[in-house]
């Protein structure tokens, strides 16, 4: 089991975790991702398709209705990337494949598909601690 400590922000409250993405040249990119329990799938900036190793899903290009708001949608490329999560205390998951959406966005969001749905999320906001437990990763 891997336990990954989260970064806790206040005002506005937010949780962040460090992810490492495998790149096409065999190196890795370490980035901070927002833990988003409202995200079905993780979201990455489309620019990262230039460097991050990925394989397209069967659907590849998709249109997503944004959070149920009528007449608003965005286009994304759906793909699998290889990544692992880590923290500054040496906590680290194994590398695994996760489905993500590459889109025109300013943020990196960590969603449920392949990632949060494998984890136990613990958040203690009064004490400003939090972690993700991955029982099998």
């Amino acid at each position, binding site marked *: 089991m891997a336990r990954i400590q989260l970064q806790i922000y206040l005002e*506005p409250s937010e949780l962040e975790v460090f992810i490492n993405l495998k790149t096409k040249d065999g*190196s*890795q990119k370490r980035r901070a991702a*927002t833990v988003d329990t409202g995200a079905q799938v993780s979201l990455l900036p489309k*620019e990262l398709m*230039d460097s991050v190793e990925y394989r397209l899903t069967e659907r590849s290009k998709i249109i997503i209705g944004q959070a149920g*708001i*009528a007449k608003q949608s965005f286009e994304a490329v759906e793909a699998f990337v290889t990544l692992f999560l880590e923290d*500054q205390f040496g906590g680290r998951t194994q590398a695994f494949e996760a489905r993500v959406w590459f889109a025109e966005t*300013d943020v990196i969001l960590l969603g449920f598909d392949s990632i949060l749905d494998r984890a136990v999320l613990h958040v203690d906001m009064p004490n400003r601690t939090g972690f993700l437990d991955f029982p099998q990763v």
Partner: protein
Amino acid sequence: MNTPHVKTTHAPGEIYDNVWSDFEWVRTHRAELMQQYGTCVILVYREQVVGVGKTEKEAEEDAESRLPSDFSEVITPITYYLAQRHPFLRVHPTSVKEE
């Protein structure tokens, strides 16, 4: 533009000595950074913003261009996406643009 002196990737298992302290610095200064730079990608090295851009590539090129012309070392900044955290994405806006 090539950025030979700015390295934002790492070999598997490698952790540069500035990484965690720079992420912690961003965490504690994020509100001020947001106010100063707005929504953008920033590169931070040893607790200083060394590159800013709309994309990672732009930020890397900005960092490279700021280095002295005779600079021969390689810096290993962290990459951080500064963005407004929207509290709600499910609220219907008062006006919606037709697509």
